[in-house]
């Protein structure tokens, strides 16, 4: 698709649910923006745009990166707007305050929050527009509004009066916004909670879906950027003469993060980039290695400032002293790369004091603000259009590649598409931080845990990304730290340690380290107590019905306690995360090379209300496979500040032949919705680790559980 840059237009709009009545400006890029400018599309509120010809466009303020929000967000609006999903189009919302994710405080797609944030406000937004259409019809027909109903894009009145939403849209957009429109009881939902075909699938099976890499602007040129092999390093000097003489090259320019070659095609740019000679000032990062990062994090548990994750319960020290048995263990998770399949890219066109940005991002306002800051522009002069994201997993919360594209465009005064190589992507990520968890528990004579001291040290992404002050609690490090079990005396400590690594939010964030530690440890306690891991957990869940329910559902479905094929074992794990309760059972064996094979994963989840159950299942499948890779196969290592993994041969995600059968049990629930994009990623690792321990007698306490790691672990 070729984009035509549009002149900026502001539309004064009455906002939707969140702010009720407050006037907000926003502007919509692209063809929808043009239609609005021409007066043929009307905007009763920021979420609903109705054209005269009755084409209804619902906006998704959340980026579509595979999690199905281009379907689930409109489903929530459509439920109360009374339109079929088949009748609507979906567009990406521009950056605007009205689209802020209330759970994260910015226009961000992440944290498994889209449905949780949108659950009420999007239904209210749909209901408001429905009521405004009815009010407009009542005025036009001079009939009582109680006699009017809206259904499937048509408004019906008495005596055969009828009108399309489109015919009423212009008038409806001028009607007062009802603050508390009538809303359906969830039991009357016709769309929400029903399996619904994704609106983005058709374009994703014939090559027409537009990702960032596919963006094309008139006169656009292509850039490849050489960055310091050590993240954070700067260009000392460079010789670009050979690159500049290479075929198709337009210019060689230095920006903050490196040296960019700009050419008529990307391949020409990439080839010429390989001809650059650059002297780097590598900076402090050159001293980093993965071993030193882990050691430093472990040391911090002794020397760092201890923050309370939650108020201590009872007296842990006394209970440990009086315990019949004390169990201690340390768990480590390594760095990880996000490695989405679409390498980082963005298209930018900077002209004078205006900038147009098009591409894949999870953080629209951040992109706008960062580019404005880097180029000295006003944020409102930076227009942003969001394409499909070829995977996100947290990587596209970051803004580095967007700022780079804008800086290169400014330097060459042309529209530029910056595209990283896979090697650039793998070696210049914002890595999942290392986590070191040390757990200590006291058991009474019956084997019941009477005391638990949980300590974790890791690095704060929130400090780096959002300037969280030092030594203050980062909630994104404490997720799933406090497990659901009833233990009388508990203490949960966090130490924040800055390793110097450039860290980022990675799917399931700190649930990964904390659930791996808690749930591995729970199996170790069961073993010390001589109890079955499932029964042991269940005995600690009195008064925790949602935990107990999913635990039982998963165990029953997986056939816990029943005979298995020879050479196989089951492991179980339980967690609450993102308001979703989840248990998983992994069935594993070892192959001839000593590698762990996962044959089957059974997952039971209680996530409250669901919007699209088919998407829920897809996300469970997805996040389990994603987590399996980190549990068994890949990690990021570092030598002299250089990330050693460079492409998918030495950072190997799970492939089809390694994919287990995934059995899913979903709890029908009317609890408030929980997130589903991430939690399963964190639960699968301890389920696998526990199964491996059962099978081999070897307790691997550091991920990934490779054949080599197993070889080096003694039978406990």
């Amino acid at each position, binding site marked *: 698709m070729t984009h035509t840059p549009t002149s900026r237009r502001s539309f004064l709009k009455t906002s939707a649910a969140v702010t009720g009545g407050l006037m907000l400006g926003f502007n919509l890029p692209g063809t929808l923006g043009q239609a609005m400018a021409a007066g043929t599309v009307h905007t009763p509120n920021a979420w609903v745009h109705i054209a005269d010809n009755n084409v209804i466009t619902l906006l998704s303020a959340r980026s579509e990166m595979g999690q199905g929000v281009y379907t689930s967000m409109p489903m929530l609006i459509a439920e109360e707007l009374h339109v079929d999903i088949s009748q609507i189009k979906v567009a990406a919302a521009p950056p605007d305050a009205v689209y802020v994710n209330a759970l994260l405080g910015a226009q961000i797609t992440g944290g498994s929050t889209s449905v949780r944030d949108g659950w009420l406000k999007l239904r209210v937004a749909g209901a408001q527009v429905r009521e405004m259409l009815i009010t407009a019809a009542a005025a036009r027909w001079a009939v009582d509004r109680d006699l009017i109903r809206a259904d499937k894009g048509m408004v019906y009145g008495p005596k055969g009066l009828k009108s399309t939403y489109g015919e009423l849209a212009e008038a409806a957009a001028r009607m007062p916004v009802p603050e508390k429109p009538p809303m359906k009881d969830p039991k009357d939902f016709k769309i929400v909670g029903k399996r619904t075909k994704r609106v983005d699938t058709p374009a994703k099976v014939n090559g027409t879906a537009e990702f960032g890499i596919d963006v094309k602007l008139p006169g656009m040129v292509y850039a490849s950027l050489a960055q310091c092999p050590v993240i954070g390093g700067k260009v000392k000097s460079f010789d670009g003469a050979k690159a500049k003489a290479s075929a198709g090259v337009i210019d060689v320019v230095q920006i903050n993060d490196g040296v960019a070659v700009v050419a008529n095609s990307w391949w020409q740019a990439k080839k010429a980039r390989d001809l650059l000679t650059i002297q780097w000032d590598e900076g402090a990062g050159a001293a980093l290695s993965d071993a030193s990062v882990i050691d430093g994090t472990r040391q911090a548990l002794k020397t760092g400032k201890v923050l309370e994750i939650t108020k201590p319960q009872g007296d842990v020290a006394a209970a440990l002293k009086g315990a019949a048995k004390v169990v201690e263990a340390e768990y480590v998770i390594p760095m990880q790369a996000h490695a*989405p399949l679409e390498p980082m890219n963005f298209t930018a066109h900077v002209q004078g004091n205006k900038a147009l940005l098009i591409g894949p991002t999870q953080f629209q306002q951040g992109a706008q603000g960062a580019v404005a800051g880097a180029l000295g522009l006003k944020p409102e002069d930076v227009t942003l259009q969001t394409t499909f994201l070829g995977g996100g997993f947290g990587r596209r919360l970051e803004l580095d590649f967007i700022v780079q594209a804008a800086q290169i465009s400014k330097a060459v005064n042309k529209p530029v598409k910056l595209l990283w190589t896979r090697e650039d992507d793998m070696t210049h990520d914002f890595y999942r931080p290392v986590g070191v968890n040390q757990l200590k528990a006291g058991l009474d004579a019956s084997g019941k845990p009477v005391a638990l001291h949980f300590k974790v040290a890791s690095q704060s992404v929130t400090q780096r990304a959002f300037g969280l002050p030092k030594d203050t609690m980062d909630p994104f490090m404490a997720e799933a730290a406090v497990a659901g079990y009833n233990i009388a005396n508990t203490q949960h400590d966090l130490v924040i340690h800055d390793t110097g690594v450039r860290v980022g939010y990675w799917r399931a964030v700190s649930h990964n380290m904390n659930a791996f530690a808690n749930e591995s440890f729970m199996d170790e306690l069961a073993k010390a107590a001589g109890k079955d891991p499932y029964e042991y957990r269940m005995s600690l869940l009195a008064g925790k019905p949602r935990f107990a329910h999913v635990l039982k559902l998963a165990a029953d479905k997986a056939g816990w306690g029943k005979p298995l094929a020879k050479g196989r074992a089951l492991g179980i794990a339980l967690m609450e995360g993102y308001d979703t309760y989840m248990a998983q059972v992994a069935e594993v064996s070892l192959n001839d090379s000593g590698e762990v094979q996962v044959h089957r994963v059974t997952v039971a989840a209680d996530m409250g209300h669901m919007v699209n159950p088919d998407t829920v299942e897809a996300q469970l499948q*997805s996040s389990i496979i994603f987590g399996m890779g980190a549990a068994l196969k890949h990690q990021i290592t570092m030598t002299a500040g250089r990330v050693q993994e460079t492409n*998918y*041969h030495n950072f190997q995600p799970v492939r089809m032949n390694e*994919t287990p059968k995934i059995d899913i049990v979903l709890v029908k629930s009317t609890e408030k919705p929980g997130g589903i994009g991430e939690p399963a990623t964190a639960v699968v690792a301890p389920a696998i680790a526990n199964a491996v321990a059962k099978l081999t007698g070897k307790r691997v306490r550091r991920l990934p559980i490779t054949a080599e790691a197993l070889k080096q672990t003694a039978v406990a």
Partner: protein
Amino acid sequence: MSVDFQINGKAAKANAETDTPLLWVIRDELGLTGTKFGCGAALCGACTVHVDGQPVRSCQTPLSSVSGKKVATVESLSKDNSHPLQVAWIKHDVPQCGYCQSGQLMSAAALLAKNKNPSDAEIDQAMSANLCRCGTYTRVRAAIKDAAAMMRKA
């Protein structure tokens, strides 16, 4: 110097340097952007196209090597999503982010061209070089079986 070949049944002439990978010719010169760049090293399969009916990694296929040959991309399956694989992919809502799916579809198309009733092992064999970071494999497998059944009936 230009290279002549066929793309999706039509004659094409490419002017890029002859060592340019076919991927970039298809995407940037011919403007067919369904074929994706994932790794640049034949490790992920996102760039899979057919050359004379064989699935190849276009990121590792120099333009010079397709002179006079027939190249088919995801766009050749059908524009209206009527190809059995597209029908099955929609039925199972296979894609998540969707980025790898063109490559998945072209690997699957090459498999079904030879084998209208592939076993799980044969599907694994044909598809395990296509990475999907979203983990859509379960649905890819189910959709291939459905498409194969449709093609057997047709």
